[in-house]
């Protein structure tokens, strides 16, 4: 049990980063950066979901942003239909998306590797069309809840009404997400997943219920993605289908690999690349099309030169600086 609550150096660094994000970052940021960091926080949570599936089970989900859309859709739907507080909407949206993830997983479980990735890509393509066709609820009537003209207000958590407080809230949620993953990793599911990644046959032979654990993993990714979507809805007050294209799901996975799927640092790098880099390029006045080119080139470069991801490279560098410290990823 001591092992369960043992905090590794990397873990301390993570807690420190979260503390910085919660205590200091918001007061340093203006409204623009608050908005950038908030959406980075939301996507961090979603990226944590894909990265964990990939790192722990070797499963590739190309539908994570689609799942975010599902979570966001549900959160909006609940917000406009009922008077629940934000937390309830968040929890329900995350849970429902988890269930959605399970349902998605059921047919996908027979597959692995590329095929699994492609089925999830098909799901992402389908969700993209559905979002584009029906849009996100904005206070209208009926099941789809869409009205023309400006939408109704989205209620934020009562403790996080301001943009600053909301950023804190999002970072705290992301931290919880990482803790949830880490907890799983240290317990029975973590061991089962490690073996499944090695070989599903070996896992079955070792008494691991492969279906259950794979479904479970999909559920967790869905949970994180759903929560991320609900948080994003809270950040913007409304959602647009343009955010949830299938290509964005692919991009998120690519970034998770580029950042380094095995560590929280990698997810952070990925989220920063996804949200902060374009914001910086935008401030520098780089043409949006050119920043696409830069982004794509950076992605390729990182995939080629950093097999462990950028975070892996940075951590290796750090380890070389401080010898004798055997840090295991948290």
């Amino acid at each position, binding site marked *: 049990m001591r092992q369960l609550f043992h905090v590794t150096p990397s873990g301390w660094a993570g807690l420190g980063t979260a503390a910085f994000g919660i205590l200091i970052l918001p007061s340093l940021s203006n409204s623009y950066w608050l908005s950038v960091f908030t959406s980075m926080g939301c996507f961090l949570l979603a990226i944590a979901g894909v990265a964990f599936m990939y790192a722990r089970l070797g499963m590739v989900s190309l539908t994570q942003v689609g799942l975010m859309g599902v979570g966001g859709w549900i959160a909006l739907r609940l917000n406009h239909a009922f008077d629940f507080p934000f937390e309830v909407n968040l929890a329900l949206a995350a849970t429902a998306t988890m269930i959605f993830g399970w349902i998605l997983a059921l047919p996908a479980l027979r597959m692995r590797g590329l095929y*699994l990735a492609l089925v999830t890509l098909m*799901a992402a393509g389908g969700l993209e*069309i559905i979002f584009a*066709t029906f849009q996100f609820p904005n206070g209208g009537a009926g099941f789809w809840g869409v009205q023309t003209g400006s939408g109704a207000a989205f209620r934020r958590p009562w403790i996080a009404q301001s943009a600053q407080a909301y950023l804190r809230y999002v970072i705290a949620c992301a931290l919880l997400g990482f803790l949830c993953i880490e907890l799983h990793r240290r317990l029975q599911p973590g061991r089962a997943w490690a073996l499944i990644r090695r*070989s599903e046959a070996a896992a079955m032979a070792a008494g691991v219920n492969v279906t259950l654990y794979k479904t479970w993993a999909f559920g967790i990714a869905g949970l994180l993605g759903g929560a991320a979507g609900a948080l994003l809805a809270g950040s913007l007050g409304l959602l647009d289908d343009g955010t949830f294209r*299938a290509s964005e799901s692919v991009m998120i996975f690519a970034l998770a690999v580029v950042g380094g799927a095995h560590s929280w640092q990698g997810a952070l790098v990925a989220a920063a690349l996804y949200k902060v880099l374009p914001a910086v390029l935008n401030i520098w006045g780089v043409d949006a099309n050119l920043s696409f080119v830069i982004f794509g080139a950076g*992605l*390729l470069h990182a995939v080629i030169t950093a097999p462990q991801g950028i975070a892996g490279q940075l951590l290796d560098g750090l380890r070389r600086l401080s010898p004798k410290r055997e840090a295991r990823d948290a």
Partner: protein
Amino acid sequence: MRLARYGNWLLWALLMAAVIGVLGWGGRPQMVGLFIASGLAVGSLYALAGIGIVVLYRATGVLNFAGGAAGAAGAMTAWQLTAWGFWEPLGWLACLLVATAITLFYGRLIAPRLAWRETVVKAVATLGFALIILGAISFLWADDPRSISLPTDAVGVRLLGMRITATRLLLFAASIGIVIGIWLFLARTTIGLQMRALASDRDLAALMGIPILRVETIAWAIAGLLAGFTGLMFADLIRLEPSVITFMVIPGIAAAICGRLENLVVVLIGGLSMGVIENMLTMSPVLRGVRPIAPFVIAALVLLYYQRGQRLTFGGRD
């Protein structure tokens, strides 16, 4: 075994007939015909995109998301040359050349550095390349309504009261011809065999003395040519809009999935069926809003059908 094979075809034919029957019920026969003809054209494009993907995947193990972008770059070049007053065939040729050059650039300079990575990582890396191409295209050509038309558009035959242009016929014939040609190439030639060897296990193929770089270059060149041709056809038949042509790869992948990333004939038939079903959905008041979802649903169902009754067994491979 053989019976099972025919069983699949029979099942497919029945399903298609059922879909067309149910959706077309009560519609004017001529409209149904028009929807089918229109579906076959889009379907050929899906199939062509899928064929490009499968050929490259089988030979190099790279699932290429950038084919659409390369085709878009080619089509834009063709448009530009024509706008500058060059002789049109020169533009078409340039389209093929540009798409091939872009694809080869990736195949020669970037893909080998990623050869040892997992398939999925290699696939998403090509998305990065697609972004580069798309960004560059949008930077070079401001958004403007454009179109390309081939001389074959002017020629057409009338069939059951609908007009079918020579372009559509050409596309249809070309996709069948390409499938047959590539199938023969892979099955009958040494390079084709080497390509298949490479796709199965690149390291081992190298160990067997197969000149990896040369074979891969050929595969990428074929993929580039196909991408250019698809881009040109897409620009003519659907529209000349780089981002739309770029993301055409996603339904293309759906078509490729139907053939399990392997069987070109099934890719062709799958692509055509997707196009037809997607168009036929227009006749359903309930489903017409979501008709573009058809390729994804079909691909997912087909995959499930393939995997039915199968238990997971060994290894980390698919």
